């Protein structure tokens, strides 16, 4: 069965807004001269985004989250592998939530 036209229009509009978010930053930077300072800005975005995602979870002060972040850091450092860090972090949170709940 096929969804109603209303539904299809809603999904298309939602998809369009999402795609514009994905493409517009790249598009707009086409008008900016990539001077060394602009390149320094762009290069610094990944670490800043990562820290921005982390910081509120770390600042929440909830023990499972703090343990999870710590476990992810340590596992990543010891293994040199990003996904070992992810696995250790999620496992630590799940176990800590179960034990502390």
């Amino acid at each position, binding site marked *: 069965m096929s969804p109603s036209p209303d539904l299809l229009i809603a999904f298309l509009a939602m998809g369009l807004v999402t795609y514009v978010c994905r493409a517009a930053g*790249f598009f707009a930077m086409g008008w900016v001269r990539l001077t060394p300072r602009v390149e320094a800005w762009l290069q610094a975005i990944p670490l*800043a985004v990562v820290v921005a995602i982390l910081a509120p979870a770390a600042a929440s002060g909830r023990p499972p989250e703090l343990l999870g972040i710590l476990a992810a850091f340590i596992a990543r450092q010891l293994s040199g592998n990003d996904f070992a860090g992810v696995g250790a972090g999620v496992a630590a949170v799940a176990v800590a939530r179960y034990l502390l709940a």
Partner: protein
Amino acid sequence: MARRDPVPFTLAGARAGARAITAFAASTVLYGLAFGVLADQAGLDLTAALMMSALVNSGSAQIVALQIWAEPIPLVALLIAIFGMNARYLLMGAALRPWFARLSRPRAYGSLFFMGDANWLQAMGEWAAGRRDGAFLVGGGLALYAAWLGGTLLGHRLGRAIGAPEAWGLDFLLVAFCASMAVSLWRGRGDLWPLVAAAASAIAVHWALPGPWYILAGGLAGSLTAAWRHEPVA
């Protein structure tokens, strides 16, 4: 602006991107599962749930959309919520400019449809490591897309037997990924002040505003601090 050398865009690059994201894609299936369950509960049939996942391809935005879903569809509220959830992509797309400007437009704009947090972060790691194959992003993105659609299908089918995803620590996945990536992306003491600026602004905005605006705020504050402190090389 001087025209720059083109960069490669190969099948091998796409495969490398897909391989690098495998473990994360496995968890995206679980995230898709959660979405499928919620979509079923919100009264969307399987075709509708799959269609939303195929057209929007944005997990957190779709889950928020379901929370305000109603009959008749509150389209304006939905679109504002989706924009709020995805505004961080503006900054992420901007960061790809020096790299993707060297691809043809169809490749660059086609790849951007598949840009998510995880494959973007990994692609930026590739770029920082000096690897230039532009297909890396879309390779990871296609793997995530397949995982997202597969998860949506499974979740909708299996329905309510699954339970709340928070209990499995899944909501923590992106945070754990970022903790790992922070170690990979850290370049040295010059990154300290941008890090402090990003963390402080993210915590403040997270406290003040609902939704993920804190990611955009922290990303902007941290990266602009880095640009401001940048010493031009004579």
